[in-house]
């Protein structure tokens, strides 16, 4: 297979297959959750459950002061990683073109120097989170093999993307193919791992805020 064939395969059918697994997998995931339903609350409401739900979706973006103090590394590196990842995924010019192609929507990209810095910071944050997971007693104890798989699957597109952009070693097209392949791997495992939190956390926060709101508590 020539370099061009490989690229076409990865960029074409493989990408669409991965995207299909990602989309349908997540739809099934939501279906699995929502199908279980939940019982009505007969207790007389003190506040608005719906408002509470919406409130908690946003309030959990801000950690409690005590958590800032006691879990500083997780909070700071966690923020750095998530913000960096969003910047890199959605605001890198070639990615914007892909989203335009897929969604028909166009938005402004950031200058490549900023993306470059964001990529490095994101990778640094991921490294810190990995070290923390390995060394901190609680995180090490909680972690399962799957967590390391998810970590690797998130790190790989960043490394390969960075290398492809800076054209180290192998021919660029092969590097880009490897980068896209790593993204496809991420998309494929997404619905079956804790990566789903990217979507389900809104449901989780809503449910928790819903119960709290019903009782007149700001959660």
């Amino acid at each position: 297979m020539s370099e061009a064939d490989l690229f076409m395969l990865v960029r074409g059918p493989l990408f669409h297959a991965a995207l299909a697994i990602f989309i349908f997998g997540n739809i099934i995931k939501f279906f699995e959750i929502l199908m279980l339903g939940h019982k009505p609350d007969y207790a007389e409401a003190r506040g608005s459950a719906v408002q509470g739900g919406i409130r908690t979706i946003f309030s959990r973006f801000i950690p409690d002061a005590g958590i800032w103090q006691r879990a500083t590394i997780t909070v700071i590196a966690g923020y750095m990683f998530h913000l960096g990842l969003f910047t890199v995924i959605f605001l890198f010019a070639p990615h914007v073109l892909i989203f335009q192609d897929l969604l028909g929507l166009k938005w402004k990209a950031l200058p490549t120097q900023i993306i470059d810095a964001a990529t490095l910071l994101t990778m640094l944050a991921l490294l810190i989170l990995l070290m923390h997971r390995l060394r901190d007693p609680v995180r090490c104890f909680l972690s399962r093999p799957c967590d390391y798989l998810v970590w690797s699957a998130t790190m790989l597109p960043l490394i390969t993307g960075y290398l492809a952009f800076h054209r180290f070693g192998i021919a660029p097209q092969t590097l880009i193919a490897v980068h896209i392949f790593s993204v496809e791997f991420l998309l494929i495992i997404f619905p079956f791992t804790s990566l789903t939190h990217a979507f389900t956390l809104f449901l989780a926060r809503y449910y928790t805020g819903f119960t709290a709101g019903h009782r007149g508590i700001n959660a």
Partner: protein
Amino acid sequence: MTALLERSLTVFKEHVDATVAAFFSSCVRCGICAHSCLFYTETKAVEYTPIYRLEPMRRIWFQEYTVLGRILKTLKLSPPISHEELSEWEPLIYDSCTLCGRCSMVCPVGNDIVTMIRKMREGMAAAGHAPKGLVDATHRAVKTGSPMGVRLQALQHQLEHVEQELGFKIPVDVQGAEYMLLMSSMEIMNFPEFIRAVARLFKYADLSWTIASNAFEATNSGVQVGVSDIAAELVERVVNAAEALKVKTVIGPECGHAYMALRWEGPNLIGRPYRFKVLHITELLDQLREARKLRTHSRDVRSLTYHDPCQLSRRGGVTKPPRRLLNMICNDFVELPDNGVMNWCCGAGGGVSTNERADQLRLQVFTRKKQQLEAIKPDAVITSCSTCRMALEEALDEYDMEMPVLSLVETLAEHLLEKKPNHSEIN
């Protein structure tokens, strides 16, 4: 698989709903919940990380309600739940969790961890893995109406004492009274001053109230141990009495857990809304304050702080009424460093104080509360839950800290402006 285990798995499955599935789907094992739990912060034992306590339930969800989990279960790649495992988990679900719910307030993905632990207790109890102390208390509650075995005669005896002291009758089984007062056995036996204080306050405010002789116990061991059928039966006793007496409002005593059981869990346990309202005693007193039916003659000169009972504040939403009442009687009120919905538990809630096996651990983790109190050094601490009160008294004593623990209701009654009794009302 034994029949008991099979039944327990059915109960576990029944308690997996959309919320549980969303919570487990969202956990990234960041470990932040550990830092909100006093059993972890005070012992540094990693197994006390709140989300870890749910591992058996998480596996049941995964194996039964996810595509991947079903495949792995069929291929025998995801191990089934065993009796041994549940037995190992028992201390994590009952001894080292007071259902305080602090973890549910900090989880970044928004998981309501404590609600899942409450659900998990149902499966644990069904499997026969609940602590003896709690199981015995539940049996006593079903048999005698009280987890401490306090019968009507004992209450009547205490009421007679109070009546002699106060010089007026305590209303019992009054049809059509507006309010029906519940008490906890702890109050009847250990803090009868509570009954005297409430009677004085209600008399002062000219309240139409009553105690029901067939349902005076407010606590619900069924909720604590995690047996919904029993919990529902205990709630129904109160509901039947309240509906038979045609009261408009049922008043929960100074007990956080009883409030949670009756106000928020009760209607869902019996599967229908109540035909009456439920108020915590501090909510009612706050309403009376607002209606200017309570007046105080003096203010406490001591520096006082308030310990928020978890089930009342964080889980129950009653945070402001106690503070407004304290404002009536305190000159020097100081808040604890983390207060209101983020307060730290006394360590005794959720049935932990009924579980002798947990006594040592409960005192050990009190260091968190101790630190909080040492940060502001109040002259006394006020609370509105008799379990918190007992736990605080015992632990302060253990740590050689001289600090009175007061009931909010009793302290309020002490400062009540005396008014001449209306003789026509006596008897």
